[in-house]
């Protein structure tokens, strides 16, 4: 199996995200070991891995928080290390930890994000109104983040990641700490972005029940890519009847212990 081959239809246009031979170590501990995979534009891809699989490290490298020791990461053909400006302009990010200013209003948070991407207040305000309205929070625009529920704040974070109209959105465990209803809402919202707006989504999770058979799945375990295909194909290859079973077979039962 060629892990670096693009998922889905192979095309001449650059992949939304292309990760090639990325390795990274913190001192002696190897966090990522020759990781390669790519996400096509407008695809819903799931990065599946347990805590400590290297997802956060990979996230930090893709978002240019720090550079990988080896390998390259490209976003729509732009090398993150060399052309970070062009690469990051295409990228929307929802971090695992809450990154909204609790004392600022929804709109103020959105305007700040717009400014960070060089979008003036007038345009950013219009985009904020559009996005927040679409995400069902139109009446909360002037409310402080502090007064929102966890699920609402998450939706604002996703809306905020879209202010500069990125073509790829990374979400790092976006459903962590949410109740079942809010989890389903957030997941549905991300899927709608893919279906209606053709925005590529890389969804990081350790929860197998968030995966659909047709999703593209990258299984990351102990810093290595164990499988990279559609969920259906991974299940077939592992001879399992669910992605959970396939995952646990691939990782040698680790899923049952930790997930």
């Amino acid at each position, binding site marked *: 199996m060629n892990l670096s081959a693009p998922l889905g239809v192979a095309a001449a246009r650059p992949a939304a995200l292309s990760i090639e031979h990325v390795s990274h170590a*913190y001192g002696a501990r190897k966090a990522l070991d020759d990781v390669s995979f790519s996400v096509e534009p407008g695809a819903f891809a799931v990065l599946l891995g347990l805590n400590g699989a290297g997802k956060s490290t990979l996230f930090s490298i893709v978002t240019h*928080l*720090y550079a990988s020791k080896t390998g390259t990461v490209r976003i729509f053909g732009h090398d993150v*290390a060399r052309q970070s400006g062009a690469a990051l302009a*295409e990228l929307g990010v929802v971090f695992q930890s809450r990154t909204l200013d609790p004392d600022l209003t929804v709109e103020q948070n959105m*305007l700040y994000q717009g400014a960070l*991407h*060089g979008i003036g207040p007038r345009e950013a305000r219009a985009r904020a109104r559009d996005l927040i309205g679409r995400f069902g929070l139109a009446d909360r625009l002037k409310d402080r983040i502090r007064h929102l529920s966890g699920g609402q704040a998450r939706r604002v974070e996703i809306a905020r990641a879209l202010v500069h109209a990125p073509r790829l959105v990374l979400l790092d465990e976006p459903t962590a700490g949410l109740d079942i209803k809010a989890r389903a809402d957030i997941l549905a919202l991300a899927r709608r972005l893919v279906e209606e707006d053709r925005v590529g989504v890389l969804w990081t999770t350790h929860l197998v029940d968030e995966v659909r058979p047709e999703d593209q799945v990258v299984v990351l375990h102990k810093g290595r890519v164990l499988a990279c295909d559609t969920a259906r194909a991974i299940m077939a290859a592992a001879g399992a009847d669910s992605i959970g079973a396939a995952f646990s077979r691939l990782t040698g039962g680790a899923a049952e212990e930790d997930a």
Partner: protein
Amino acid sequence: MSAVAGGARRPFGLAAYCICLQGVIWREGLRFLHQRERFVSALVRPLVWLFIFAAGFRQTLGISIIPPYETYVLYDVYITPGLIAMIQLFNGMQSSLSMVYDREMGSMRMLLVSPAPRWFLLTSKLIAGVAVSILQVYAYLVIAWFWEIEPPSWWGYLTILPALLLSGLMLGALGMVLSSLIKQLENFAGVMNFVIFPMFFASSALYPLWRVQEGSPGLATVCAWNPFTYAVELIRFAFWGKFEPLSFAVVLGCAIVFLAAAVVAYDPARGMLMRRGG
């Protein structure tokens, strides 16, 4: 729906840089307004020194005529530039604290995924912090005016501004370097003990250097090597409508060095961010 997918990507031009800088300052300002305790404590600290410490020492400590002063000045007048620099020192360290906090809370990462170059983002953050410190300084000066501490001419309130800008940049950049070294919020107490207090006391903020020299030549040498001394003197001269070239050069040089160090510390390839593992 097309509310999400955008049109052609615009290059990050000059206008975008301006919007970005404005946005960072605006956010810092909003946050500052929401943290009224921070403003009050930033104001109370120098006032305590002024009303209690300086009032007590007024009788025991005579200040001879040293530049920029052309007449005898009261001790309150003498320590005002030191207290102004202290406001900026605390503010610089507090911004660094807020950067550690931001980093723990992830909003630092939000800042750093902006397509603007990282040195620009850090400088914007720095300028935003300096703007807040200047507000605090002017609030202090208003109160000090009622205490009859005022420059020989009203121009002093204007000439002090560039000095505040420069010293604020130096102290803020120092805080930024420290913020990259501090791993957790709890270590801020260490910053207090090992940075703020030594810098403040081993300087010309509370007593002129010639007095220190009489008491302890060793300490005087330390004071002469302390960049904070030059921030204080730069402010002291500027408030009196004068320019002190040596202080200017030292403060400018230190500001550049500290800022460069901060940019290196937050550099993706070399930086300290990596060691922590994000």
